[in-house]
């Protein structure tokens, strides 16, 4: 047990690193789903952005330009999803799956086209950890929270910002209305299609930060399929957090903590298969209505056709 407390510092640091891409993607999914569009393509959006970020950073030599290309790519592919689902009224799950497959095949193909071989890209200069003076010297929590990449700090800022935007601004009200009762907001003069484009577009931008964090913050290279299911875990965090930014961030931290603990405890102590299923089990529990029901936006998944 004493051993465990000695490990707590590194575990907390690891928790924040594990949770960061999940929080970004979950916040992205929140905008999309609150506007009434399921975005199962988060995984693919993260992957495309992780790749585009590395390409941008590799060509320009600047991590910030890389972040810019990552966001541009995430936005572009999110808008393809919006075009398919909002304008053409295609099935949202199929479109999202197409985005995921496009990301997997497309990045694999472009790896060869740009870097000459698949697998792992050349190293790039990513976002190094930046310790915040004073705060980072707080015992235990300091290094975990305040000795991280700047993308992590961006994540801290975004959680309350997203909360404020979604629940305390006219834009947020319209967005939520679009996801709950599109007929009603339409009658009130809100352009439902435009709100959904905003929602899905924002999901691409936020997922892009998550992808960029993976390839340029946590690591400093792109590896094919490096998101390894994080987009789906982020969706689970979103549902477990009941489509609320604070809840989703909390769920992501919980999943990140569970992972961090397995990295450090003895192999035999907890079977690895058990840890791998935690996010999904918790999601099922949340959906099964234990501890209050998780209710999705009412109009989610349904294309809206103006009468």
């Amino acid at each position, binding site marked *: 047990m004493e051993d465990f407390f000695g*490990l707590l*510092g*590194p*575990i907390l*640091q*690891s928790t924040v*690193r*594990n949770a960061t*891409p999940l929080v970004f993607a979950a916040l992205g999914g929140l905008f999309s789903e609150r506007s009434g569009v399921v975005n199962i393509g988060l995984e693919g959006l993260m992957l495309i952005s992780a790749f585009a970020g590395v390409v941008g950073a590799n060509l320009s030599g600047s991590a910030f330009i890389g972040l810019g290309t990552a966001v541009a790519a995430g936005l572009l592919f999110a808008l393809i999803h919006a075009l*398919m689902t909002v304008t*053409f*009224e*295609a*099935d949202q799950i*199929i*479109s999202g*799956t*197409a985005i995921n*497959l*496009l990301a*997997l*095949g*497309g990045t*694999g*193909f472009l*790896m*060869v086209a740009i870097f000459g*071989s*698949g*697998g*792992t890209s050349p*190293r790039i200069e990513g976002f190094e950890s930046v310790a915040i003076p004073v705060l980072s010297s707080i015992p235990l929590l300091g290094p975990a929270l305040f000795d991280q990449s700047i993308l992590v700090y961006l994540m801290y800022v975004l959680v309350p910002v997203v909360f404020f935007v979604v629940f305390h601004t006219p834009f947020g009200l319209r967005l939520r209305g679009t996801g709950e009762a599109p007929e009603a907001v339409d009658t009130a003069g809100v352009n439902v299609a435009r709100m959904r484009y905003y929602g899905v577009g924002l999901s691409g931008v936020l997922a892009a930060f998550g992808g960029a964090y*993976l390839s340029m913050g*946590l*690591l*400093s*290279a792109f*590896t*094919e*399929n*490096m998101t*390894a*299911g*994080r987009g789906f875990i982020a969706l689970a965090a979103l549902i477990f957090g009941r489509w609320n930014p604070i809840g989703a961030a909390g769920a992501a931290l919980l999943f990140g903590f569970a*992972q*961090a603990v397995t*990295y*450090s405890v003895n*192999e035999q102590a907890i079977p*690895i*298969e058990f840890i*791998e299923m935690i996010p999904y089990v918790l999601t099922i529990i949340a959906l099964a209505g234990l501890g209050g029901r998780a209710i999705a936006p009412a109009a989610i998944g349904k294309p809206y*056709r103006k009468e």
Partner: protein
Amino acid sequence: MRKRLGFVSLAMALALVALAGCGGGSQGGGEGGGGGGGSDIRPGLVLDIGGLGDQGFNDSAYAGLKRAEKEFGVEGEYLESTAPTDYADNLTQLAESGFNPVIAVGFLMTDDLTEISEQFPETQFAIVDSVVETPNTMDLVFREQEGSYLAGIVAGLMTQEDTEYTTSDEKVVGFLGGQTGPLIEKFQAGYEAGVESVCPDCEVLVKYAGSTPEAFNDPGEGKEISLQQISQGADIIYHASGNTGTGLFDAAKQEKIFAIGVDLDQAKLFPDSPILTSVVKRVDNAVYQTIDSVSKGGQPKGTTVDRGLKEKGISLAPFGRFDDQVPQEVKDQVDQAREGIINGDIKVPDAL
């Protein structure tokens, strides 16, 4: 509007199919031909998840195919697999198109190959890292535990030295595995035995990245596991985890510890990471020799070819740029153990 919806659905479905194909079977194939009097065999390779550019296992197998194409003037083909569901399709596709031998690169294809080799009794199959009990399948297995034992000796001794990357105060070393299961446990068992033989009170931290094939392709997780082991005092970490290991190399660079690579001489592939040595597995030779024996008409049939230190199927890469940081006693101990294993004095466990 209805019509449009149908069109879009169709377009999406087509896109799905096209993309799945794109991911599943990026085509390769080579120049190969033209060499005077070349054999008319057509070797086919099904690569595992990770695919070309993994700077490990798959690249090594591909190098073997390339060498065979060049030397025997044959024209080969390879198919990449992006998911376990691709194996059966890829194997069938090559066998149906008349490729011979068809080599499955990776133990994950065991079940699919067992079935498919029965459907194509005339084709010579081979599988790397596994045993398939059909009469037309050759098994290309390695005694990875032998090389891992040598890596364990290096780790167990170097963790007691003071160098730029190691400190003598904590006797802790790490092992990062990919997918849990008997194959990677061979690496672990050999490594642990090697560490134990030179440093009985050393602690070996062991962690696997997961229980699915994706565990070989998650560098993010590889880095986190490595950082945790480093925080627990590990100053040398050996990995047998495919692409996941690139996360270890990242962590080793960041935290200034030694990594030990696997499959290829990874120090050459990741020159900016402190990779002390690698356990090299000559998958390329296994592929090359299989094509060689088939091209000579000698059908290898269902034999098992087991390669270890003795057959030079497994070796420990040179210390390269860290050579002057490795004391002579360490090198001597490694050499002694290598001889001991080759002449049978040292029995290395192949399972936990």
